[in-house]
């Protein structure tokens, strides 16, 4: 197991190198630069600004310099927010995205697992059809529809929550539900499918024949195998929750990293783009590794592979 983890971590190095290189050159190929604005400044001023950030050097030299800084963990200043470094911005904004993602994940797992379990145990009954139909709707309704709908109902009409902001504990409820709903729906369907498959296995019949109670069969014997598809889904899901929070952050005015990730590209904020891309890349790779480790732990069959 240790060798497996070590190997995967070592593999990260070339992957990160390729991502950094591709990001660097793709940014530079895109037309327009960080200091272009609607009101043009004299070319001399623009040149001074470029020089200040080292953008006047030959491209390959800039590339080497940035790679060197990246190796030192220095992501550089942001062009758009000159008094802040990319490291500071990520340190400020990421905890917010992380919290939002974690809360959405709880929503996804609590509602998804519960609905999926009940549906699988009461297959083809109303308790199966109703949650599964709702799950289908949950998958289909995009966050930019779900968010305003929830705000309209619970913030503006019932006045239970603020329409946007991130100050009080209750400000977390609507964004977490909005972001988590889609994943909850997915988890529900995956749990149901996984559980149905397992519940028809011989070893479950054996357990029942030996006199194990319903609760014991479901939670001790079936669940561990039944939720494997959910665990595999969690890797990309968590990555999606964290990187895909841009829309939810905008709808609810949340000061997370998702917004910087998206707007930095529009702003041609080269260092910010590079910083956030690499940061998310590391995050996704590590998450996938964690998921693989959990899968191996849950599924003994995988240990031999």
């Amino acid at each position: 197991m240790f060798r497996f983890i070590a190997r995967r971590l070592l593999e990260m190095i070339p992957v990160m190198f390729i991502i950094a290189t591709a990001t660097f050159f793709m940014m530079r190929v895109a037309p327009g630069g960080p200091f272009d604005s609607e009101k043009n400044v004299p070319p001399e001023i623009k040149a001074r600004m470029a020089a200040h950030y080292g953008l006047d050097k030959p491209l390959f030299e800039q590339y080497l310099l940035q790679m060197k800084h990246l190796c030192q963990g220095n992501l550089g200043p942001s062009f758009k927010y000159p008094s802040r470094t990319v490291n500071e911005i990520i340190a400020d904004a990421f905890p917010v995205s992380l919290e939002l993602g974690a809360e959405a994940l709880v929503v996804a797992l609590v509602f998804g697992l519960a609905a999926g379990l009940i549906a699988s145990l009461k297959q083809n009954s109303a308790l199966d059809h109703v949650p599964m139909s709702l799950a289908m709707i949950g998958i289909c309704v995009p966050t930019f529809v779900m968010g305003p709908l929830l705000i309209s109902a619970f913030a503006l009409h019932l006045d239970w929550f603020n329409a946007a902001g991130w100050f009080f504990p209750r400000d977390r409820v609507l964004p977490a539900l909005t972001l988590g709903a889609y994943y909850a729906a997915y988890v529900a369907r995956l749990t149901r499918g996984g559980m149905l498959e397992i519940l028809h296995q011989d070893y479950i019949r054996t357990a029942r024949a030996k006199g194990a109670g319903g609760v014991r069969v479901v939670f001790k014997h079936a669940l561990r195998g039944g939720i494997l598809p959910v665990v595999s889904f969690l890797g990309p899901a968590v990555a999606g929750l964290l990187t895909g929070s841009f829309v939810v952050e905008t709808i609810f005015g949340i000061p997370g990293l998702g917004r910087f990730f998206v707007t930095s590209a529009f702003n041609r904020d080269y260092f910010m783009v590079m910083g956030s891309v690499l940061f998310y890349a590391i995050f996704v790779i590590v998450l996938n590794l964690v998921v693989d480790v959990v899968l191996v732990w849950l599924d003994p069959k995988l240990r031999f592979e």
Partner: protein
Amino acid sequence: MLGAVGLAAGMFLLTAGCGRRETMVQIADLEGVLRIGNGAEPAGLDPQVEIGEPEHDIMIALYEGLVDPDPKDGSPVPGIAERWEISPDGKVYTFHLRKDARWSNGDPITARDFLESYHRMLLPALGAQYSYMLYPVRNAEAFNLGKMTNFNEVGFKAPDDYTFEITLTGPTPYLLAMMVHNAWYAVPISTIKKYGALDDPTNPWAKPGHFVGNGPFALKEWRVNSHILVERNPYFWDAKKVRLNGIYFDPEESYDTAERMFRSGQLHTSLSAPQSKVAYYRKYKPNLIDVYPLLTTYYYRFNVTKPPLNDKRVRQALAMSIDRQAITETVTRAGEFPAFALNPPNIGGYTPRAQLREDLPAARKLLAEAGYPDGKNFPTIELLFNTLASHKAIAEAIQQMWKKNLNINVTLHNEEWKVYLDSTHHLDYSIARAAWGADYADASSFLELSLTGGGNNETGWGNAEYDRLIEVDGKTQDQTARYEAYKKAEAILMDEMPIMPIYFYTRPRLIVPDVKGWYPNLLDVHNYKEVWLESPK
């Protein structure tokens, strides 16, 4: 799923035990804190580095210049300078500073602070994008562009602690109007030096804990993308007059989100209602919206270096054959005013004389004269705009009008913002959408746009007579003569038609009646010094 969502919300409420509650605005009214939806996260609060409106709207609370914008109309009134004299030739301005003005750390403000501030603003390495606001000053441009290194030769002088003198290259009658802008604020040089180099735009001095300013308020909290809080500055010379205890700026960028915050009582005012809701507010909640004109013009650029737009008659025909009223009434719908000239009417008493006519028969005749009778043989041209639904809707309307009225084909092409800037900058377009907001309230801010080879011209058009009218005849102290020159220049522009004005912007600001002393004005500049809050009884 929606059921589950409802259930979750219900469960949360049972545990949290909430119901109808006081809104944030009601609480803020009691605390004397104004809550403003600012439209964007400020890039920074260094007045010499930052160029945007969201930054300006915060900095006006934190700094005060030699002159200060009048709360009602934004025109220059005494600020740190309590009075000034202008020499008869209009070239020397002498400002007399008030002796009780202090920085927010208690240090006195002297003429030397202004001298050193303008020195920093013009340091080439700082790369200040608005340094051109100081260019009317003698040798300022040469120093800024590195052609001169001795700052003593630049037209700024501080003969004593409370006298500051500005010598201009030539008379610039709108200098005081320009000086309201944040490019003219003083910055705390000793504080800046404490946190880094003077000419380093990334110097982190303008942050909470480091910040020193000289305005009615001082920076207290700044959480990126969340909020900025400023509180009353006790050292402000006019602190007795300040009635707010603080201002809370919410940087929400989405007008839709901000409007929902406004509706749920989280904001006193939001920069702008979403376009789709302006009509609703005007009809059903007129006491919550204030729609007023801005000094910003929406127009199309014609690339005059490319056929068929190199022919003046084609440009005129295009400009004469659209229905601007229909665009503002059915497409943009925020009370905008159709534009028949580049300058909106009545900027400081200036109204352009030449007004564009919408005249279909004349437009068709011009097109025929240019060799395209009834649009025959007219090549298909491309209309470029930056990706945004509202620009697209306008472009589609104009495309149809041209097809119907002139029988010519125009294709639409949208580009992401920076790509669009790059294309227009390199004249890589035929017709391109554009907008210009004045930096200061004077017609020159618009007219300088079309000077030959000007950085923001971007049409390839140039006219020696036009340049002369703006740069020579327009530089007189005599306002009547100056406006006469501008009127002639604008007539040339409206005849040559390198740009086609479409409408003048309005600002549909959402604002609750609790906010008092807040006046709509053309630059949307609000001097928070005299704003106060009053809860409805």
